[in-house]
């Protein structure tokens, strides 16, 4: 009877913990589109969450003037910034490492709704030309990061394991939407522990 009670309490605590995670921690969203031997990945996370999840200070996006200059995003492209996001995340299949190259990165105000459900949404969200240029922004607290990545020569049937850095953060809920050639294959929500892995 005592063992049953202990198990019940443990399950209840776990459920409360999961619910608390769902309500109180920032979320990460991934769109995965497999196209033949290529994989395109789109990521959405709150800008302040880049540090705990990806070990990346979003201040890296700021120019020398200490602010994010959206006009310069258009002049130079932002694929190198996207590279920075996955710098501390390793990706591999059973057989080999997978190289995800950044394609573009964009920051949007959290108060401005951005569709992020399909690969086309992904392309739009990371495009630096899709929104009006605003004044340079120094405080990224209320900004969301959208980044795109592309990997080639990956067997379509292979799972890819993304290993995240250990930063001492709380677990994160990650929504993963899977596509093949733009056609939806399903979606689910995963719990990503600190220093944990995500299979896509």
């Amino acid at each position, binding site marked *: 009877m005592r063992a049953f009670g202990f198990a019940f309490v443990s399950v209840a605590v776990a459920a409360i913990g999961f619910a608390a995670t769902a309500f109180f921690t920032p979320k990460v969203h991934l769109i995965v589109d497999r*196209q033949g031997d*290529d994989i*395109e990945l789109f990521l959405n996370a709150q800008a302040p969450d880049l540090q705990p999840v990806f070990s990346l200070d979003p201040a890296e996006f700021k120019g020398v003037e200490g602010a994010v200059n959206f006009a310069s*995003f*258009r*002049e*130079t*492209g*932002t*694929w190198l910034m996207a590279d920075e996001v996955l710098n501390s995340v390793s990706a591999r299949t059973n057989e080999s490492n997978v190289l995800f*190259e*950044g*394609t*573009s990165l964009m920051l949007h105000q959290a108060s401005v709704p951005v569709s992020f459900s399909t*690969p*086309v949404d992904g*392309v*739009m969200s*990371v*495009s*630096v*030309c*899709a929104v009006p240029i605003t004044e340079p922004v120094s405080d990224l607290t209320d900004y969301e990061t959208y980044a*795109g*990545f*592309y990997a*080639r020569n990956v067997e379509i049937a292979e799972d890819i394991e993304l290993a995240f850095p250990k930063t001492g953060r709380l677990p994160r809920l990650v929504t993963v939407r899977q596509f093949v050639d*733009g056609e939806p294959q399903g979606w689910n929500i995963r719990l990503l522990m600190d220093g944990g892995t995500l299979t896509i």
Partner: protein
Amino acid sequence: MSFNLDRRTLMIGLGAAAGSTAFSKLAFSESHASAEGPQTFEIEMLNRDPDNPRQRNVFLPRIQVANPGDTIKFVATDRGHNALTIADMVPEGAEGWKGKLNEEIEVTLETPGAYGYLCTPHSALGMVGLILVKGEGLQASMETAKAVKHRGRAASVWEEIWAEVESENLLG
């Protein structure tokens, strides 16, 4: 992606009917040397391919075949794009070009060869294109251009472009 000769022939006919300016919604467009002299071709810079809404940020046509002396006009149909040549994808002895964002530029190409170009903010998303100027040295220039490495989706798009050049026998 496949095309049939009838569509291409129709496009060429329409281009001729339009006088010195030819325009195509096809993925590639081909110049025919004519007694009328050099032609001007338009390449649109677009947020999306009207024939394939999944394909965002494109040059259309993405392959243009021209003759020496022909002019290419990059049309800023949508904003936020530019066109500039890629390092090592310009024929030896020729000059590249560098358009600013939203800038419509015209370039007259005298030197035969393969000219690879891109849109600065969207190149890694695959916004790239190729101009083939017929004449001596085109084949060698193509081989040099094919050896250039690209990042992200652009690498896949270039593979599609090279395959298209071959399958459509665009080197003549």
